[in-house]
């Protein structure tokens, strides 16, 4: 059973803080994704990574960066958090050649 874990379920930060969201998968998946989920907007892709140290921008990368130093770990970084980044953040992973995404439980981030 694939397991995708995220470091925090709930996080509260202040405007201007640097925020790290961590995601770890235990099934040796090549591809990992970060989405944000907002009511009425569904899921929007922020970044994805298809290999260690490789990344591609999704639809809404502004204000975010990512890091993939190890295959199992994909980090989302908010360099300077802003209130409009208050959201639910979802991590997902996929095995290369497959298409089913496995999602983590999400991190609900509130920026005050």
């Amino acid at each position, binding site marked *: 059973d694939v397991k995708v874990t995220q470091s925090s379920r709930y996080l509260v930060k202040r405007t201007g803080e640097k925020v790290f969201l961590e995601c770890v998968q235990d099934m040796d998946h090549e591809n990992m994704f970060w989405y944000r989920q907002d009511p009425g907007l*569904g899921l*929007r892709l922020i970044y994805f990574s298809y290999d260690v140290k490789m990344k591609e921008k999704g639809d809404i990368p502004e204000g975010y960066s990512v890091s993939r130093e190890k295959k199992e770990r994909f980090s989302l970084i908010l360099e300077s958090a802003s209130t409009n980044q208050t959201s639910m953040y979802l991590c997902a992973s996929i095995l290369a050649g497959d298409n089913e995404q496995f999602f983590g439980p999400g991190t609900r981030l509130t920026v005050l």
Partner: protein
Amino acid sequence: AQSVSQHNHHVILSEAASLELGCNYSYGGTVNLFWYVQYPGQHLQLLLKYFSGDPLVKGIKGFEAEFIKSKFSFNLRKPSVQWSDTAEYFCAVEGEGTYKYIFGTGTRLKVLA
């Protein structure tokens, strides 16, 4: 522009009623299609998927979806819903082989016991 539209944002049904959730997409190329479900307090999980072949696909928990290429649609159906189907449902499209998934805005289904 690439997009996915889910026309029903909120649906309320009584148990045993039939369900159909609409999904239309706009994409200039071959696509893979998905329905994901998020039960209250749980992870998003795959309900069913279509890659090729028979346009009528069956998923878990009695759900099915039909791909109609000419209409760019991938509607989700269930003949008889249960209270436990209360959840949010997301349609998604992936440009074949791109790993770039586009999700719809979701449909919140509430089934009354």
